[in-house]
C-alpha cells in the first residue's frame, strides 16, 4: 500500500536526517522522538482516532502546482499592536520579524543550535507524555524533524501580544515546533496567523507554572490548497489558566489536536474552535483530550462548525477525570450548522470519570438554520441572506466569546463575516 511505503520512507528519511546532522541541544530529544515514531508508526485510517479523517492526505499528496498564498492577506491581526515573529516556508525570518529586547521575556529560535539551552529540558517532553490514550505519531515526527520554531520564556510583565506570522513563497511543506514556558504569575497572549506552508505540521508545547496565564488565538486555512496537522500540548499547574481559540476558514484538510493536562489544583483550561467550510474538499477535524489530574479544576471545550456544499466536520473530544480529581467541572459542546443536505458532521464525545464528586456535561448537535428565527428576522426587513449570516454568526458566538481580548474577538468576527459574504458571490 502507498501509505505503508510512504510511512517507511518518511521514517527512514527522518532517521537519516537526524543521524547525519547534529541539531545541538535538541539532538537527544529528536533521537528519542525518532525511536518513539519507529515504534508507533505513522497514522493509519484503520486507527480508532483516524477513522473519520484519512491521514494519507496529510502525508502522501503531491504539492506541486498548487496555489501559493499571497503575503498581503496573511496577517489578519495587522491592526493589533503585537510583537511579530515571522516564518517563511518553515524558516524563521529575522529580517521580517520585530526586534525584541527585554529581561521579562526571552525569544529564541529552535534552529539556533548554539550552547546548552533552557529549552532542552522541555523540548518534546509534553509530546512524549501525550501519547495517551492514543499515539500521536505526527507529533513525534514533528519533534524529530522540526526545521524551526520559536522558544518563548516569559519571566515577567510584557505589555503586548506575540504574533506568529507564517508566510509562504513556494508550495513547501513545513514542520514547526514551538515551546512556551510561562513563569509563575506571568501572562502571555499569543496570536497566530497566515498559511505558514502548503502542508504544515505544527507542535506547540505550553508549560504553565503556578498562576500563569496563556491566551492563544489563531486563524488558519484561509487559502484553499492547504493541509495542516497541529498539536497543542499543555501542562497546566495550579491556578494557571490556559485558553486557546482557533478560527478555521477553508483549507482542504486540517486536523487540530489539543492535549491538555490539568496537573495543578484550581487551574482552568478552555479550548474553543470555530470553523467554516465550503465544498466537498473541506475537511476539518478537532481532536481534544483533556486530563483532569488535580482538584477543583475547570475545563471547557466549545467547538462550532458551519458546513456547506458537502463539507465535512469532525469532532473527537474526551475528558478523563482521574481518581482524586474531585470537584472537577468539565464542559464540552460540539455543534454543527449544516447549511445544506450534502454536508456532514461526525462527532465522538467521550467522558471517562474515576472520581465521584465531579460535574461533567457534554453535548453534541447537528442542525440547520432555525426557520422560525429566519422568518422573524426577515419579517423585520432583513434579507434572507443577511438573516442567514446573522444566525450563522450567532451560532458561532459561544465559541468566539471564549476570546478574552475584545479587539481580537472583533477581528475574528470580521473575518467570519467576510467569509460569509465571499460565499455569496
Amino acid at each position: 500500500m502507498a501509505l505503508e511505503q510512504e510511512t517507511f520512507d518518511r521514517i527512514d528519511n527522518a532517521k537519516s536526517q537526524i543521524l547525519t546532522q547534529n541539531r545541538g541541544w535538541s539532538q537527544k530529544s529528536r533521537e528519542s522522538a525518532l525511536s518513539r515514531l519507529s515504534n508507533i508508526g505513522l497514522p493509519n485510517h484503520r486507527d480508532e482516532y483516524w477513522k473519520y479523517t484519512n491521514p494519507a492526505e496529510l502525508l502522501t499528496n503531491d504539492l506541486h502546482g498548487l496555489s501559493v498564498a499571497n503575503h498581503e492577506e496573511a496577517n489578519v491581526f495587522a491592526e493589533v499592536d503585537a510583537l511579530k515573529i515571522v516564518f517563511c516556508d518553515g524558516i524563521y525570518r529575522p529580517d521580517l520579524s520585530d526586534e525584541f529586547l527585554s529581561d521579562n521575556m526571552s525569544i529564541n529560535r529552535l534552529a539556533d543550535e548554539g550552547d546548552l539551552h533552557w529549552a532542552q529540558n522541555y523540548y518534546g517532553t509534553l509530546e512524549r507524555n501525550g501519547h495517551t490514550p492514543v499515539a500521536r505519531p505526527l507529533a513525534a515526527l514533528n519533534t524529530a524533524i522540526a526545521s524551526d520554531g520559536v522558544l518563548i520564556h516569559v519571566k515577567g510583565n510584557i505589555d503586548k501580544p506575540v504574533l506568529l506570522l507564517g508566510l509562504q513563497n513556494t508550495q513547501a511543506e513545513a514542520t514547526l515546533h514551538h515551546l512556551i514556558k510561562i513563569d509563575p504569575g506571568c501572562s502571555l497572549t499569543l496570536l497566530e496567523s497566515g498559511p505558514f506552508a502548503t502542508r504544515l505540521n505544527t507542535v506547540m508545547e505550553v508549560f504553565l507554572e503556578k498562576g500563569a496565564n496563556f491566551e492563544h488565538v489563531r486563524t488558519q486555512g484561509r487559502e484553499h490548497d492547504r493541509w495542516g496537522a497541529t498539536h497543542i500540548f499543555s501542562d497546566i499547574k495550579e491556578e494557571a489558566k490556559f485558553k486557546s481559540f482557533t478560527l478555521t476558514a477553508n483549507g482542504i484538510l486540517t486536523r487540530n489536536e489539543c492535549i491538555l493536562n490539568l496537573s495543578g489544583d484550581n487551574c482552568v483550561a478552555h479550548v474553543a474552535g470555530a470553523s467554516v467550510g465550503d465544498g466537498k474538499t473541506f475537511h476539518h477535524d478537532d481532536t481534544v483530550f483533556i486530563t483532569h489530574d488535580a482538584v477543583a479544576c475547570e475545563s471547557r471545550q466549545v467547538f462550532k462548525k458551519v458546513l456547506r456544499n458537502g463539507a465535512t466536520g469532525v469532532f473527537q473530544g474526551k475528558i478523563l477525570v482521574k481518581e482524586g480529581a474531585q470537584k472537577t467541572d468539565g464542559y464540552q459542546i460540539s455543534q454543527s450548522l449544516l447549511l445544506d443536505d450534502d454536508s456532514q458532521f461526525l462527532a465522538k464525545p467521550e467522558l471517562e470519570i474515576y472520581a465521584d464528586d465531579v460535574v461533567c456535561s457534554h453535548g453534541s448537535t447537528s442542525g440547520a438554520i432555525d426557520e422560525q428565527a429566519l422568518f422573524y428576522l426577515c419579517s423585520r426587513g432583513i434579507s434572507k441572506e443577511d438573516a442567514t449570516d446573522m444566525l450563522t454568526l450567532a451560532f458561532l458566538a459561544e465559541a468566539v466569546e471564549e476570546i478574552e481580548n475584545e479587539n481580537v474577538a472583533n477581528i475574528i468576527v470580521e473575518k467570519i463575516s467576510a467569509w460569509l459574504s465571499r460565499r455569496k458571490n
Partner: protein
Amino acid sequence: MLDIRDLRVNLEDENKEILKGVDLTVDSGKVHAIMGPNGSGKSTLSYVLSGKEGYEVTHGSILLNDSDILEMEPEERAAAGLFLAFQYPVEIPGVGNMTFLRTAVNAQRKARGETEISATDFLKQVRERANSLQIDAEMLKRPVNVGFSGGEKKRNEILQMAMLEPKMCILDETDSGLDVDAMKLVAEGVNSLRDNGRGFLVITHYQRLLDHIKPDVVHIMADGKIVKTGGPELALEVENNGYSDILSEVA
C-alpha cells in the same frame, strides 16, 4: 392602506383550506380589530400577510397601498411598511437586541433608497422609545427575546414597531400572556403610534385589549371568513354573550 379581496389560503402540507374568502379593507388612520373563536383563521391571516412559508394562496389578492404584496418576500413587505407583532416572539440566542434593531432599521431604509441612520441618532431614538415602554438598557443588550418574560417579549415587539415606523401594523394576540399592567403598557405603546398615516389590524380573542386600544371597526371571523362587521359595540357583544350567538345569527 390594506386591501384584502376574496383571499383563499390552503395549508401547504395538508391541502386544507384555512381562509375561505376573506374581504377586508383597512384605511389609514383606522384601527380594525378581528375577533373570533380558536381555529377561525385569525393567526393564519396574519402569517399570510407577513409572508410566512407554508401557506398557499389559491385565490384573491392583498394590496398594501396599491402594491400587490403576495409577490413580495417577507423583507420586501416589511420595507413596504407592513409589520407583524408576533403572538410568540422568537428567541434568537447570539443576536443582540440592539444589533438586530439597527440592522432591521437600516435594511428597510436601504430598501427604500434612504440613507442609513447614524449610530448616535439610532441610540437616541432607541433610548427614548425603550424608556416609554419601560425597557431598560440591560434588555436592549441581551440577545433578542432570550430570557425575556412574556410581557417583556411583547413590549420588545412594540419597541420594534416604534423603531421601524411601519404603515400597516398587525398585532397578533398581543394581549396573550399579559397581566393587566403589562397590557396597559403595551396598549399605551400602540396608542402613541396611532396617527393618520398608519393603519392597525388588532387580532384578539378578548374584548379587554380593546378597552385600551379603541378600535374603529370590529370584525368577527369564523371558519376562515369575516362573518360580521360593526363598531366597537360588537366587541362588547362578544364579551357579554360569547361567539355562539353571533355565529348562530349569521348561520
